[in-house]
């Protein structure tokens, strides 16, 4: 695949890629822009190669995610594995329309699988490919994330109703 074709694919996926980068960066716009640029650079310099054009989206999302993980690692912001598995108890109140705030309350892996499946309409298998984990693990994150997210939404709605 030549550079022009690659650029064409990247342009087509640009909006989704930016949104995904933002979601992986805890909705930090500036960091998302930087990470996206770094990911494009990696691709166009040939450091990451697309073998199957049908899997362009999962391939691009995976590169973005790993570029962000690398950046966090450099900055010393690494989330321990247990933390990404166990649900975090929420104490502070979140507005039911603060979608990003609610999503942020999910553990990292659950959040990424849930965003890939519900927001980007990917399958659990595709989300597993992006996260470089096996499908069974991705399914576990999906189930736990779904349950946790429902609880968070209900909680925020309840708080809002009681407030009114």
């Amino acid at each position, binding site marked *: 695949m030549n*550079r022009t074709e690659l*650029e064409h694919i*990247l*342009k087509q996926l*640009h*909006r989704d890629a*930016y*949104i995904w980068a*933002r979601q992986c960066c805890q909705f930090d716009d500036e960091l998302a*822009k930087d990470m*996206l*640029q770094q990911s*494009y650079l990696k691709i*166009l310099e040939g450091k990451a190669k697309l073998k199957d054009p049908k899997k362009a989206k999962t391939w691009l999302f995976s590169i973005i995610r790993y570029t962000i993980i690398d950046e966090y690692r450099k900055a010393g912001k690494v989330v321990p594995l247990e933390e990404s598995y166990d649900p975090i108890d929420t104490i502070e109140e979140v507005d039911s*329309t603060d*979608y*990003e705030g*609610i*999503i942020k309350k999910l553990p990292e892996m659950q959040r990424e699988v849930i965003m890939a499946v*519900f*927001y980007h309409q990917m399958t659990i298998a595709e989300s597993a490919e992006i996260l470089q984990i096996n499908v069974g693990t991705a399914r576990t994150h999906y189930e736990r994330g*779904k349950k946790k*997210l*429902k609880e968070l*939404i*209900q909680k925020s709605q309840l708080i809002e109703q009681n407030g009114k």
Partner: protein
Amino acid sequence: MLHSFFSEMKKQDQQLEIPEFPETKVKAINWWLPSGIAASFLVGCFWFFQLSQAPEAPAEVIIISLEQGENNEQQIIIEEKAFIDTWESTTSSLLTDF
């Protein structure tokens, strides 16, 4: 519940300002740099081989010999030859005569 949550979230994201796709330019190779390196390499090779070559034998060899003349006087004979290999001592007869 989750589907309506995400459709609302997507609606909100419609307001997001998406950055422009970065214009990427193919890095133009500055040919001066590789040309300079290649030229320096060639000059280096040239000097190296020139220095390592054995000095060529002079085209002509001047042979100066001292001989005794008929009247017992000494005389210097200067000869010019192409190669020293072909030179025969003019005094070699002295060895055989002696």
